[in-house]
C-alpha cells in the first residue's frame, strides 16, 4: 500500500517528465526531423536512450542548486510542487505559449516557500535567474563561433552536396545524442529534484557491476518518463518547430543543437566543472536551464551571423513573454494547490 502511495505522489514528477520529453525533445531533434533529415523513429530512440543516460550519470549537479532554493520536505508537498509545474507546462503548451520546465519548477518551489513560510534562498534564486539570462547569451555566442568555423571549413573542404547531406545527417544524430544527454543531465533536476529529500528508493545493483544509488534510481524513473514523453507526444512539436523564429537549414540546425546542448552540458556536468576549475578556467554554476531558451539564443546567434535578416522578432517577443509568465503562473498555481492539498486533502505539505 505504501509503495502505491509513493508511486501516486511521484506521478506528478513523472507527468512533469512526460511534459518535458514531449516539449523539449523538439529542441534537440525538432529541426532534424522537421527538415526530414532524420526519421522521427530514429530521433525518438536515440533521444530516449541518451536522455536516460544523461539523467542517471550526470543529473546530480543541477539538482543540488534546486534543492538549495527550497528543500521540499514532504512527499505530498513535492507532489504538489511538481504537479503545479507539470500542469503549467502542459497548459501553456496547449495554449501554444512558449514554456520552460526549469522556470515552471522554480516558480512552483517559490510558491511552496511562500506557502510554507520558508525563506527563499536569495543567493540560489539570483544564481538561477542570472543563469536564465546568461544561458541564451552563451548559446548565441557558441552558435556564432560555430557558424563561422563551419562556414570557413565548408569553403575550404569543397564537399559535394550529396556527401555533405550524409555528413550532416551523421552530425545531426551525434549532436542529437549529445543534446539528449545534456537535456537529461540538466533537466532531470526539474523533474525529480523536488523528490530527492523525500526519495523512497534505496540503492540497487544490476548485473555487470552497475550500481545505482537512491537518487539515481529516482533519476532513472524520471528519465523513463521523459522518454515516454518523447515517444508519445514529441512528434507533433518536432514537425512544427522548424517553422519557428528562423528557418533553419540542416547545417544551421546542427549548429543550433550543438550550441544549445553545450550550454546545457556546461550547466549540468560536475565533471566538466571540476576540470575547468582544475585548469584555471572559468566555470559555471550547475543550474537547470531551459533548453528552449538555449535554442532561441543559438538561433539568434545564427541570425546575427547572417545579419539578422530573417529573424521574426514578433515570435521572439512572444517567447520572451513566456519566460516571465511561466514562473509566475507556476508559483501561483503551486500556492493554490498546496492550499487545497493541505486544507481539502489534509496532507502535510
Amino acid at each position: 500500500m505504501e509503495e502505491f502511495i509513493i508511486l501516486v505522489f511521484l506521478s506528478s514528477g513523472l507527468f512533469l517528465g512526460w511534459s518535458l520529453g514531449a516539449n523539449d525533445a523538439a529542441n534537440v531533434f525538432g529541426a532534424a526531423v522537421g527538415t526530414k533529415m532524420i526519421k522521427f523513429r530514429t530521433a525518438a530512440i536515440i533521444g530516449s536512450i541518451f536522455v536516460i543516460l544523461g539523467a542517471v550519470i550526470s543529473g546530480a549537479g543541477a539538482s543540488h542548486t534546486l534543492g538549495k532554493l527550497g528543500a521540499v520536505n514532504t512527499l505530498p508537498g513535492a507532489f504538489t510542487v511538481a504537479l503545479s509545474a507539470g500542469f503549467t507546462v502542459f497548459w501553456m503548451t496547449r495554449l501554444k505559449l512558449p514554456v520552460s520546465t526549469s522556470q515552471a519548477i522554480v516558480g512552483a518551489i517559490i510558491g511552496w516557500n511562500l506557502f510554507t513560510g520558508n525563506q527563499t534562498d536569495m543567493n540560489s534564486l539570483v544564481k538561477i535567474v542570472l543563469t536564465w539570462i546568461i544561458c541564451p547569451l552563451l548559446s548565441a555566442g557558441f552558435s556564432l563561433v560555430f557558424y563561422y568555423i563551419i562556414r570557413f571549413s565548408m569553403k575550404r573542404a569543397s564537399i559535394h552536396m550529396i556527401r555533405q547531406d550524409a555528413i550532416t545527417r551523421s552530425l545531426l544524430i551525434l549532436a542529437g545524442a549529445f543534446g539528449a544527454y545534456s537535456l537529461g543531465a540538466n533537466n532531470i533536476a526539474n523533474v525529480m529534484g523536488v523528490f530527492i529529500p523525500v526519495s523512497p528508493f534505496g540503492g540497487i545493483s544490476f548485473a555487470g557491476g552497475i550500481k545505482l544509488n537512491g537518487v539515481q534510481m529516482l533519476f532513472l524513473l524520471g528519465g523513463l518518463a521523459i522518454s515516454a514523453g518523447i515517444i508519445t507526444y514529441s512528434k507533433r512539436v518536432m514537425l512544427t518547430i522548424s517553422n519557428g523564429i528562423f528557418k533553419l537549414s540542416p547545417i544551421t540546425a546542427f549548429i543550433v543543437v550543438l550550441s544549445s546542448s553545450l550550454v546545457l552540458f556546461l550547466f549540468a556536468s560536475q565533471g566538466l566543472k571540476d576540470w575547468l576549475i582544475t585548469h584555471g578556467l572559468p566555470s559555471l554554476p550547475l543550474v537547470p536551464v531551459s533548453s528552449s531558451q538555449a535554442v532561441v539564443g543559438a538561433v539568434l546567434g545564427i541570425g546575427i551571423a547572417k545579419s539578422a535578416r530573417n529573424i521574426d522578432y514578433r515570435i521572439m517577443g512572444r517567447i520572451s513573454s513566456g519566460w516571465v509568465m511561466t514562473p509566475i503562473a507556476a508559483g501561483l498555481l503551486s500556492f493554490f494547490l498546496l492550499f487545497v492539498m493541505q486544507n481539502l486533502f489534509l496532507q502535510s505539505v
Partner: protein
Amino acid sequence: MGFLFKQSAAIESEIDTMLDDITQAALLFHAGVKEYLAGESIAFSERLERVSTIESKVDQSRRDIRNKLYRKMLIPESRGDVLSLLENIDNVVDRTKEVLTEFDVEHPIFPQNLLSNLIKLSEASMNAMENTVLASRAFFKEVYLVQEFVNKTFFYEHEADTIEATIKKEIFSEASTLELAERIQLKRFVEHLASISDEAESVCERISVAAIKRTI
C-alpha cells in the same frame, strides 16, 4: 552510416558523369555546326548521331538520379532545386539535338559572308553551355564559385545576342540577294543557334537563386 556514404558516392559520380556528358554535347554541337557550314555532311551526321546518343543518356541519368534522390530521401532541403536544375540543364542538351536536327532536315544554305559570324554565334552558345555546366558543378561542390560561372554564362549569352542581331541585319540588308523565304528561314536558324545560350542563361538564373539558398 557507411551505407549512406557509399550511396552518396554513387549518386555523386552519376551527377558528375551527367555533367561531363553535357559538356561533351556542347563541344559536339559546335563542332557539328562548323562541319555543316564547311559542307562536311558525313562528319556532321556523325556529330548529330553522337549528340542524340548523349541526349538519351542524359535523359536516363536525370531519371535515375531523380528516382534515387526520392527513394533514398536524400537532400530533402535542396532536392527540389537539384531536380529542377538537372531538368533544365537537360533541356539545353535537348535543344542542341533539336537545332542540329533542324540543320539536318532543312539543309539551309548560308551565304559565305555570314559564315564567320555564324561560327562565332555557335561558339558563344557553346561557351554559355560549358559555363552553365561549370556553374552546376560549383553548385554541387563549391557554391561560392557559382556566381563567377553564372556571370560568364551571362556574358556569352549577351555576346550571342549581339552576334545574332548582326547576322540578322546582314540577312535583311539591302545588299542581300536572298529571297524573302530564304531570309526568313536563315533568320530562324540564327535564332536556333542563339537559343542554346538563352536556355543556358535561364538555367543559370535558377542556379544563382538555388546557390543563395545553399550558402549556410
